[in-house]
């Protein structure tokens, strides 16, 4: 099963790199993003890029957005390009196909994260020799949250992609979901009474960051596990053919 998952994930990543018909243009697109988060931003922030959690949060966050496109394509794209039925007619098990798609999305995000982190440190050290590396706790937190975040997006995205008739529909549905999650955070400060906002700010100021991070990690892990379980339950090739 591990080899089957690897085979599917390898094919997915190859397809992404060859998106516009050539490997070179695909790799160039990816290098542009890596250059922004690994060179441009660190040059602007200098040593603070390494010492402040902000740098790692940026590196951990941006690639997750890029995963959305990949995961929206996972099943809806195969369906749209008429490759899904042939894949389902192969010897691969339902789980291998499903986990292969999720693995590809997570790997894609984590490659960006790793490249962004390492290139960022290198850039800052070239600009400011002896600047050092990220604090270990920040680094571990960024990697773990990237992993959990990309699993969340992959899990939710696969669920959407499974039931969308084409990639555009899958991407639209994912974008709407994303907006619905962020809307309260963006609009909240504008619509909530001033007293409530002050209370929230006070609560945030007194929060134990370490405990909050651990709690957020646990919540994300539970949601990820639930999404994967849901995907396993709902991935039925006899149903996919009918969709």
């Amino acid at each position, binding site marked *: 099963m591990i080899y089957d998952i690897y085979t599917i994930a390898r094919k997915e990543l190859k397809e992404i790199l060859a998106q516009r018909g050539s490997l070179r243009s695909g790799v160039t697109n990816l290098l542009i993003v890596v250059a922004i988060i690994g060179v441009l931003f660190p040059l602007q922030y200098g040593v603070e890029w390494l010492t402040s959690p902000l740098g790692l949060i940026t590196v951990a966050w941006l690639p997750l957005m890029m995963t959305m496109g990949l995961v929206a394509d996972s099943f809806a794209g195969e369906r749209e390009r008429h*490759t899904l039925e042939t894949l389902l007619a192969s010897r691969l098990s339902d789980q291998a196909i499903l986990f292969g798609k999720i693995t590809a999305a997570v790997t894609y995000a984590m490659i960006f994260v790793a490249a962004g982190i390492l290139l960022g440190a290198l850039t800052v050290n070239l600009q400011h020799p002896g600047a050092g590396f990220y604090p270990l706790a920040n680094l571990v937190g960024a990697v773990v949250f990237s992993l959990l975040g990309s699993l969340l997006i992959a899990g939710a995205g696969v669920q959407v992609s499974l039931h969308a008739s084409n990639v555009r529909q899958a991407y639209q549905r994912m974008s709407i979901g994303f907006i619905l999650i962020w809307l309260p955070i963006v609009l909240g400060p504008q619509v909530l009474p001033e007293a409530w906002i002050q209370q929230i700010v006070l609560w945030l100021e007194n929060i134990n960051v370490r405990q909050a991070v651990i709690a957020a990690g646990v919540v994300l892990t539970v949601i990820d596990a639930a999404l994967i379980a849901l995907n396993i339950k709902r991935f039925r090739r*006899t149903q996919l053919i*009918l969709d």
Partner: protein
Amino acid sequence: MNGCIIRTTNLTRDFKTGSGQTIRAVDQLNLEIPQGIVFGFLGPNGSGKTTTIRLLLGLLEPNEGSAEVFGLNTRTQADDIRQQTGALLEHTGLYERLSAEDNLDFYGRVYRLPAGERQARIQELLSQMGLWERRKEVVGNWSRGMKQKLAVARAMLHRPKLLFLDEPTAGLDPVAAAALRDDLAHLVNDQKVTVFLTTHNLMDAEKLCEQVAVIRSGRLLAAGSLDELRKRRSGAQVEIFGRGFSPALLDQIRALPAVASLQEQNSHLVLEMRENAELAPIMTQLVLGGAQIEEVRKNAASLEDIFLDLVDEEKA
């Protein structure tokens, strides 16, 4: 298995339409397909051919009845069936952003071919199909005929015991269709594989198939070898070349009980005989009536004739 690679028993599959209507795509289908042959599954568009393949591969579950492939139940042992089969379905199923070699390499990995064997097999199949020189090209830029060839190569990559080919020449121009047919015939002979071929192209079936079944509206109309199906047809057709076919003589011949119809076409006669009728007395009558016979050609019914007869019978 008793030499049968596929057996279906009252296999039935219904679909619900958007308006809530139920459509029976496959209706009480009973088939027994022996190992090692090319089996043609013929029928017009929408007759249930593709649904039957999906049922046999376990991609759909039957509403009634059952199917066995290699003696394995399609409902409960579909994974084992798919392990031993190759399929070219309604669409080529090729990843058009990838090269021909990458497409085959992916499916080689899917079927766990070791690296060395995988490479050798890719080279063998692409060379046989005349595609080896173009293996690095992105498939999306290829012609439909080339894509179909590559899809056939992909289906045969892991040396399956049974190959499902769903309308392999559909949408191809006559030259590409003939080339693919030749390649298929060659590969099938070479690789000793059983083929379940669905088509509405009767030339494909006539050239490739040892046994055929005709399906319409999900129901099996007939099954057997081409010779067996020809025997079902009522009378033979005879073409008679020569001179001296006077109108009076032709009227005399038309009046014979053995003759179903007689037409004069481009200086020769086309004679349709009734079932079990003998040709010799008719020829004697023609000669006695003053005709000079140069050549007599007894035509076997083509698959197209048989197919149209069966469809007409079913309609009636």
